[in-house]
Every structure is written in C-alpha cells, then in structure tokens.
C-alpha cells in the first residue's frame, strides 16, 4: 500500500459525497491508502486568489505544510484543489521572495513551508502511476455498448506550464482511461469548453449558458453520458442541467465522475450514490447490462 494525504476539498464531501465514495472504494483496489488530515479550503483558485493573491498562497501553504509534516504527497480529485495546491507548491518552490513572505505569515501558526511534497490529481495518478494496463486488468464488467463524451475541464490541464498533465488543446489521457474500462469515447463539439463555474458567483445565468454549450455538443454526438474528473464541472453539468431549463429546453444527459465508472467496471456497487444524481443514470446502467 502506498499512502497519500487525501485532499477531499469542499465540494466533494458536502455537495457530491457519492463522488467521495467512488474514490474511497476504488483507490484501495490499486493499493492506495488515503489519509485524512485537517485541511481547510484549498483555497478556491477563483474566489480566494481573486481576493488576495498572497493570502491565497499563504492559506494554501498551510495545507501543504500539514502533508509535509506527515511526509505524505497529496492526492486530490478536485481539479480546483489540484490547481490551487499545485500552483502554490510550484510558485513557493521557485520564488524565494514569495516563499519568505509566506513563511513569515506561517510563523504565526508555527508552521513552515519546506517544499518537500508532490501534488497529484487522481486521474493523472491513475494514468501515470497505476497505468492503463493495470486498470484494464482489473475490469470485470467492461462498459461496452455506451458512448462517452469526456470532459477534461480547465484546471486539470491549465495553466499548462505548471499542471503538465496533457496537451490542453488535444487532451487524450482521459479518453484512454475510459477506453481501458471498455467504453467508447466520442469526439464532440465543444469538447474543450469550460463548465463556466468560475462565473457562477458573479452571474449564474451566464454560467449556465456556458455550461449548456457542452450538453449541446455531447447530445449532437449521440453520447450516452458525459464524464468529468472534477466535482465542480460535475455540478455544473448534473445539477446545472436542471437549472438550465430556465433558459433552454430540458435535457437529460447523464453525468458521471470518472471514479464512478471505474468502480462499475471493476464490479463495485455504487447504486446508493447513483440515486443521488440529479439527472437519472438508469438508462445508461440498463444499456450496460443489456
């Protein structure tokens, strides 16, 4: 078993906890042990960074310190947390002035950023550390017969120079991860489009219009489902589709988080969590067992 500090974030545990279930149940199967630490908000790469950049770095550094003190690398499944923690970790490692400014503040809470750990996103981790072959070997119930539109989202990939996960203009790793489960991935219009969540706090209607473009693209490609690797993108599209009816005709495209499909393919029962989705997923499940 390799141990990681599990950075669960704010959105997963209190808005979409069934995503947390999918992670806590699948990762141990790949010999990953998740350790919970008293982390606070990552903090939010949109709101807190926009409010005050130094405060954002400082609050984020406190989270990094908790993992450093335990000697553990961080594993997160939220692309927003991934972005914040990875940018802050990289900036502080490379900018001595910023590091000393932040450490000056951290002294007040008896902590010090040292720069000894690595930040992982679970999807990138599965691809790089576990590997497609190992994942495919564990599959007992291949997801054959369904077409999937994969949504990478923004912060899993960008800013590219820091995230270094995949090509932001032609991402392929997530498709490979889905294909390893036996699913078919489809090219679709607006595949690179943002979910719009960053605009939610300013203007919900504009955010919904941005998210709607993705649903249109996936439906045009006859996708059976949309798959995300970020809980915030998940919320934009799953709960979002219900809110979109204010502006657009009703759509019912099922949305999954990657780890849910991984669990299904390796034979886990996530039925309690599937009932908590806003858009019903039964049709997809039926297709899989047909």
């Amino acid at each position: 078993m390799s141990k990681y500090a599990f950075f669960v974030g704010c959105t997963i545990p209190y808005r979409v906890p069934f995503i947390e279930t999918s992670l806590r149940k699948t990762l141990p199967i790949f010999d990953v042990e998740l350790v919970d630490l008293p982390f606070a908000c990552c903090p939010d790469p949109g709101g807190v960074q926009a409010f005050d950049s130094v405060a954002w770095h400082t609050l984020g550094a406190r989270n990094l310190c908790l993992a450093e003190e335990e000697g553990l690398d961080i594993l997160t499944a939220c692309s927003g947390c991934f972005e914040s923690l990875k940018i802050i970790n990289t900036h502080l490692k490379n900018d001595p002035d910023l590091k000393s400014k932040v450490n000056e503040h951290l002294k007040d809470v008896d902590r010090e950023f040292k720069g000894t750990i690595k930040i992982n996103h679970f999807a990138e981790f599965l691809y790089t550390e576990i590997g497609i072959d190992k994942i495919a070997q564990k599959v007992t119930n291949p997801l054959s017969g369904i077409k999937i539109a994969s949504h990478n989202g923004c912060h899993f990939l960008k800013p590219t120079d820091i995230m270094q996960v995949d090509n932001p203009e032609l991402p392929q790793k997530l498709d490979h991860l889905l294909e390893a489960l036996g699913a078919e991935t489809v090219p679709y219009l607006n595949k690179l489009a943002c979910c719009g969540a960053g605009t939610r706090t300013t203007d919900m209607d504009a955010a919904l219009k941005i998210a709607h473009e993705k649903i249109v693209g996936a439906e045009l490609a006859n996708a059976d489902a949309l798959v995300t690797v970020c809980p915030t993108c998940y919320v934009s599209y799953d709960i979002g589709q219900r809110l979109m009816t204010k502006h657009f005709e009703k759509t019912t495209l099922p949305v999954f988080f990657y780890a849910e499909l991984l669990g299904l393919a390796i034979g886990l029962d996530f039925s309690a969590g599937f009932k908590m989705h806003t858009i019903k997923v039964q049709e997809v499940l039926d297709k899989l067992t047909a």
Partner: protein
Amino acid sequence: MTLTTELKEEFKDLYDKVKLCYQCGTCAGGCPVFKQYSSFNPRRVMEKLLAGDISAEIFDEQQIWYCTGCYTCSTRCPQGIDICHVINDMKNIAVKIKNAPPGIITEMTAILETGITAAKSTSALRKRDKLELPEIPPPDMTEIQKLMEVTGVIAKLNALKEDAK
C-alpha cells in the same frame, strides 16, 4: 478615480505584463464568457491596460469579475501574455478599491467562519451518513483566522462589508 501610489505601482506592473499585446483578439475568440456575454471581452481589457485607462470602469463587477479563470486565453495568446493571471491581478486591485461582487464576500466569510466554502447542510450530512462516509477532520479555526488576519483578508473583508451597507 484617484489611485494611491501603491496602486499606481501595481498598474505599472500590469502594463509591463501586457505591453506585447498586439490586439489580435485570439484571447476573445476562445473566451467562453465572451461567447455568451459579449460585454466582457479580454482583448478590450488588454486594450484599456495598454492605453493606461485606469478609470474604475475596467474594474467593474460587470467586467473582470465575469472572467471564469479558465486559462484558455493564456494558453493561446501568440504573444505569450498570461491574460488570465493579469485579470486575477486586476481582481486583487478591484478588492482594494472595494469593487467586488457580493458572492466573493459570502465565500470569504464562509472560509473565515468554517475554513471551507461549502455549507455542511443537514441534507449533505444525511447523504454522508447514508453512504457510510467517515467524518472529515475539521481544520483548526484559530489557525485559519490568524492567517486571514495577518494577510489582511479580515480588514479587506470588513471594508467591503462596510461599503455594501
């Protein structure tokens, strides 16, 4: 609008970051917000910075706060300008001149009070129970509040709340 010397310095930094912009519009072409809400146009924001237009209008809630922070523009700018980051710097200035949307105040207040942004609502806790999920260890709030105090967040938050009255 009058700017303090400190803010003028920050403006100078912003100008230096965008001075290579040749107004091609690639940033606007790929911007998900501009596509749906044409009043916000990142090329125009760059134009104003280049022109040294420091009127309050460019810090307006109807402008920069619409940027969703997706980095599409920064990925594509042929001049290598990190537009997304520049706009974030502008939001930092906007907070200083008390021009921030109410959603930001709510979010910062939530972090100050609970350390996280999502509410631990009864329905969320019920779902966690049903899914047999463990309790998440809560952060030490004296630490969070201390850091928010020493980095000046609390003072800025109070100023914004005072202004909103």
